[in-house]
């Protein structure tokens, strides 16, 4: 699946997007975040804010317990500050 990062999540990860294959057993947004945090200090720092980081699956907001099965694109970003 494709992962996209925005705003300070993007800055901390150091990438705007990447393709990953999450291991079996990573079934939800929260589990994906836990797996990402284990990939290195940049990810750990990016996701240290935990629940403050929002996610979207295929361009729709998704809660931490949302299933990522079949997802094509998952985005992570801080709370939104548009308008």
């Amino acid at each position: 699946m494709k992962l996209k990062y925005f705003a300070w999540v993007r800055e901390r990860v150091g990438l705007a997007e990447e393709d990953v294959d999450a291991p079996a057993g990573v079934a939800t947004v929260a589990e994906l975040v836990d797996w990402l945090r284990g990939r290195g200090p940049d990810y750990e720092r990016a996701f240290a804010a935990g629940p403050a980081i929002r996610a979207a699956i295929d361009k729709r907001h998704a809660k931490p317990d949302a299933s990522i099965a079949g997802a094509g694109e998952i985005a992570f970003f801080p709370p939104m500050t548009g308008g």
Partner: protein
Amino acid sequence: MTVRLQSEPFDSGAEVARLSEGRAGVGAVVTFTGLCRDRADNGAPLEALILEHYPEMAQAELERIEAEARARWPLVDALLVHRYGRIRPGEPIVLVATLSAHRATAFAAAEFLMDYLKTSAPFWKQEETAAGTGWVAAKDADDAAAERWSRG
């Protein structure tokens, strides 16, 4: 019903004139234009805001918010324009316009659209000041404003 994302400034008056022209059944037009202030949230003079966005989702999310407004209120038309990129103090950032037969509907729908847009449209502001650039923190008051519209 239109949702438009653009980097260039827009003219609210011209947008609204175009939208409301020849609409015999429209008795009310409510517009909200959000402008870039000349101060950062910490009070420092602001040089510019830089708006980052998630283009495909921003378009889809604003269309969903607009569809939700139409489901709740009998709107004749609505327009959402949101800019991205570098925005200077005094320039417009966002425009919401609602057209309906009566004012109560147009006022409520415009307020709903803005409240939802603030908390769910994927845009992020960065403030550019003499001290450098920094991300704007989300405000609890915006969450509370959106929350009051939630259904049971």
